[in-house]
């Protein structure tokens, strides 16, 4: 559950970043349309909620709340470094991580 939480946190910050034109442009070579930006933000919010839910399930609501804040901060910094060096690489780790972590969580 912790890993699914971490993967969702990373996915969430990727969505928030892609909803911003400079980062969207760096990845997809085009500015982000308004409706798409809104959609990405909604997915980001849903993924943040999912991350919170995962950590709270795994560690209780008190420690889980601390964990989701820490995970979002850490994921956002990792994303920042990727955006600065390899912007086109930011999306696939999110997909792979989410699928792998979800598989592991449901298999367990």
């Amino acid at each position: 559950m912790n890993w699914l939480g971490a993967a969702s946190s990373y996915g969430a910050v990727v969505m928030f970043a892609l909803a911003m034109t400079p980062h969207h442009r760096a990845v997809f070579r085009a500015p982000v349309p308004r409706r798409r930006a809104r959609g990405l933000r909604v997915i980001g919010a849903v993924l943040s909620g999912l991350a919170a839910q995962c950590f709270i399930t795994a560690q209780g609501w008190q420690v889980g709340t601390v964990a989701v804040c820490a995970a979002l901060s850490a994921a956002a910094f990792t994303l920042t470094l990727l955006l600065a060096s390899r912007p086109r690489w930011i999306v696939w780790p999110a997909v792979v991580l989410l699928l792998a972590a979800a598989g592991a969580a449901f298999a367990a």
Partner: protein
Amino acid sequence: MKATFRHSMTWLHTWCGLLLGWLVYAIFFTGTATYFRPEITHWMQPELPRTVSAVRAAQTAARVLEEKAPQAARWMVDLPDARSPELRLYWQAAPGARFQNAEVNPLTGGPVTARASLGGEFFYRFHFQLMLPHPWGRYLAGVAAMAMFVALFTGVIAHRRFLADLFLFRPDRIALRSWLDFHNVAGVLTLPFCAMISYSALVIFHALYLPWAAQALTPPTPAAGIATSGKSASPNSGDTTRPAAAPAAPWVVPAALGPMLAEARQRWGDTHFAKRIEFVDRGTARAAATFTRVDGDAVSLRRRDQLKFDGVTGALASSTAASTTDGSARTVHGTLYGLHLARFAGPFLRGMLFFLGLLATALVASGLVMWTIKRRPKLAAGGRGARFGLWLVERLNVASIAGLPLAMAAFFWANRLLPLDLPARANWEMRCFQFAWAAALLHAAVRPPIRAWREQLLAGAGLFVALPVLDALTAREFLTAAGSSRDWVYLGFECTAVAFGVFLAIAAGKVGRRAAAKPVAPAAKVSPASAPTAEEMVS
């Protein structure tokens, strides 16, 4: 410059950050290391077993205390847990007397047979005591925490594009712009962490920093220890305000710990046993023993399971957490204290907090470096005072930012190189840390700044990367044992040291390259080149 609110806040941010930045940097760095205090100790005292049964240790503790201090008014036992094998006993001959303490072998009750070393405890103590006499280190740490808190909020106000630049870092821009990007990103992303850490740091010692409310509210007692309420996790937390028992009262024979241990074990089991046992008012009719369980899934330090026994009959009196009788102030204090210490964190969360701690340390360091990059052209061309200011800040930056990791590495090297039978060995380790740091300051004072940066970063990198080699040469049996038993704590320490060394080496390489490409970043050209994002602190 127009004196707007934002400009005033930027000014405050700059100077508050500069004057206390070096101190805050050292406190954050050593505090971050403290997240792995028992793990560092495990590497520095490899003779100790990795884990010990808490129940077994408690039985030993009961026996040793019965021999050593049968007539003591108060006993306290810190038991081993999953992360630390240490068994430490404290006892107080009479109420208000000084605590005595001993670390004993949890299996035999005899003395501990490991090399004398403070281990991770050194970083823990340094990060709020700063090797100064009590209570000056704590005061200074409080000033630093306050400065950090002020710098955070003034920084938020000074940062104009808080959300728009949330993920923006452009390492390929000119030096000042890249540093500012990094400072902004690190600051915004660690804002919740830094705010929590610096505010809780102030709250932990509230009774030391703001003693007047407690003084006004509690009736004066002869041995009133006003600064004790904020230290409930430390052995000297003993509340010395407890009224002394009548000296002439006859000794009431206290109940034995053994049956209480059995009861606690029956309720809690072996794996999640007590972390602390406290037996107060021994010898009086009010005697009481409290078993406090190892931190579970609660953040607050006060929300831990407790078993309270009558200290005369040995009967179980209550089995609720300390927090059930707490008022709101105590609840807030316990929660913030718990957040700061992060004892609740498992390996995963601990790793993330460690990462955030390093990032916050880098945030402070980047702020200090930026001060010099931004002002170098102007100050270097200025009068004597301006040139001296630049000289001083540049030197102190090198000695603190690059010198501290060097000193920490020297501390680890001393642990492996000092003879095992050296008298006051643990003190010598600390002295090596101090000597190395002083040498870094001296070196920074005599070398040109860029060279000093490079040389100190490279020296630190070398010492950290070579740590496993040193270990293989001086403590081969422990390294082999750790390898064959897959002791990931021991090996993880060495991997972290190597990774950190590599990071320092990369930093040293970057210093050289930047210096070769652009010796001086002309600050005046920055604003127009990268407008509209480069305003504020640049202008």
